[in-house]
């Protein structure tokens, strides 16, 4: 039971990270019907920028752990959001009227490009987050000892998801995003500036993805330049699992995939951990391509 609960909470923490990345995929897909292959690499940028800022600014020494990490998260989110907007301008906007294949290839190219800029700047080896900055304390929940970092990650990812959900559902701008996702042409006729909506989506998604990257760095203590595509593929699986284009779906799918993967690794085989997500992906596309909550996607796939 102890082991099961540990794995479950671990799965929830990883799942929260998947969900944050999946939101970026699903929002872009909702508005542009494009799989943003470079999203996983923006996530890696979050992890690397977080590492650089953490070590070079020594924020946690100056203002304490809580405030320091909060400032760090906001800085990383801001920087990666800007990067996302640049990506949209450079790689996707010129191709908006082109056939699908062109946009897909450009997205792949962007992904390869981003990944290799990181490799050339930081080197190909694994980068390690410094020890001693982060709390290693464990919390005691009625006899279940959980690392503080794990609890914080679950809480932070849920908080961000709730904030995004309220933003999309309750504000005027959120309504514009939903409208553009349903029908771009009609949204334009209703006076919505679709280009600005797309830009906004490319700011929000990468911001969340960047935060997720930072969380991975803090949780596992090490990052490498190719991790973006593994996490990206898994987050994309999560998005499909929940129903692509569906924002609550991405959240549910992410958490579910994280738990499935953690339990599968613990009880089936650790060596096949990475294959579990891909099997889930293939199964869901065969059995229910619209995803668990994806009734809104009427388009045949």
């Amino acid at each position, binding site marked *: 039971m102890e082991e099961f609960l540990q794995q479950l909470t671990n799965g929830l923490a990883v799942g929260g990270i998947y969900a944050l990345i999946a939101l970026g995929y699903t929002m872009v897909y909702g508005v542009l019907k494009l799989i943003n292959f470079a999203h996983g690499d923006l996530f890696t940028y979050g992890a690397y920028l977080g590492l650089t800022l953490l070590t070079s600014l020594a924020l946690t020494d100056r203002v304490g752990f809580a405030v320091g990490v909060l400032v760090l998260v906001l800085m990383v989110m801001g920087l990666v959001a800007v990067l996302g907007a640049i990506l949209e301008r450079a790689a996707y906007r010129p191709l908006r009227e082109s056939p699908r*294949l*062109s946009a897909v290839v450009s997205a792949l*190219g962007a992904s390869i490009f981003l990944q*290799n800029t990181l490799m050339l700047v930081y080197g190909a080896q694994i980068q390690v987050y410094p020890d001693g900055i982060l709390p290693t304390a464990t919390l005691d929940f009625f006899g279940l000892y959980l690392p503080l970092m794990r609890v914080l990650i679950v809480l932070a990812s849920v908080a961000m998801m709730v904030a995004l959900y309220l933003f999309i559902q309750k504000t005027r701008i959120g309504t514009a995003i939903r409208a553009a996702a349903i029908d771009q042409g009609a949204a334009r006729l209703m006076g919505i500036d679709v280009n600005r909506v797309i830009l906004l989506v490319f700011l929000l998604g990468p911001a969340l993805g960047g935060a997720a990257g930072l969380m991975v760095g803090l949780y596992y203590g090490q990052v490498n330049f190719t991790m973006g595509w593994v996490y990206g593929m898994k987050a994309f699986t999560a998005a499909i699992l929940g129903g692509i284009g569906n924002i609550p779906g991405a959240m549910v799918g992410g958490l579910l995939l994280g738990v499935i993967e953690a339990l599968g690794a613990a009880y089936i085989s650790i060596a096949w951990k990475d294959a579990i997500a*891909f099997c889930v992906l*293939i199964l869901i596309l065969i059995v229910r391509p619209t995803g668990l909550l994806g009734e809104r996607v009427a388009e045949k796939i």
Partner: protein
Amino acid sequence: MNRATWLVSGLFVALLAVAPLFLNTYQVDVLNSIGLYALLALSLNLILGEAGLFNMGHAAFYAMGAYTAAILNTRYQIPILWTLPLSGLVAGLFALAVARPVVHLRGDYLLIVTIGVGEIVRIALVNDVFGITGGANGIFGISRPKLFGFVIRRPEEFFYLIWGFVALTIFLFLRLKQSRFGRALNYLREDEVAAEGSGINTDYYKLAAFGLGAAWAGMAGTLFAAKMTIISPESFSFWESVVLFMIVILGGAGSIPGVLLAAVLVVGLPELFREFASARMLVFGLVMMVMMVVRPQGLLPARGQRFSLATLMRETVR
């Protein structure tokens, strides 16, 4: 083909045939890699270029062929070239089995699924599935190929084996392209609904393209295993699939000369600029992005087939 095309192709063939006499071993080896990639890219071209099916797990089929050949050769001492048809068959059947349930998926979903299949195969190989793949170390001690009692060992000898196979492939694929089958694939790529409306069994042709392309990749895998004598899962990583995908898109989907040219550029150029080797993928990524804006149809796009009126008349009358 008109006279100019014949002349240019003939010149190329003649140049290639005598190339090993003038090049050193390293250069011949580079040509061998180009040949293998050309072979793989031609097989992917059948799926991605002719039929328009986004397949980014081609390395999985390549791996299937290479491992089939290696296992048969090291365990059962079957001469490596004899395993060619069997590796092709295994890779082709595997492709049919995985493609069957997903082949109806729309473009980018198929892309994702094939990436997933490629990864599952790689992970299975690393985990030494059924205890026959040798895990992360792979399989070594694959014997040298023998042709009519002549053992092929040196790069110069492999050169003729590989490029001979490339020549055969080009000949067969050109014939296929001009056949009813090839036209059906092209129709499918351009407009699936219209193709179905004209009585083309879309699922059948899609699967046939997958099976044939994968079988060819499997045979290329056999040649690879024979050339390297050691194979391991890292030779069949996701990036291998990406490079092949890129060769087809860069050269021009559905264009055999384009694919050949792109194979030379993508595999050959990095050898010329070895000091920038680490920036290789960076440049590739950038080229992919720029190409899609500047020249999405590829370097040497496929031209529509031309029919002379006289031949058409004759065929209709008959």
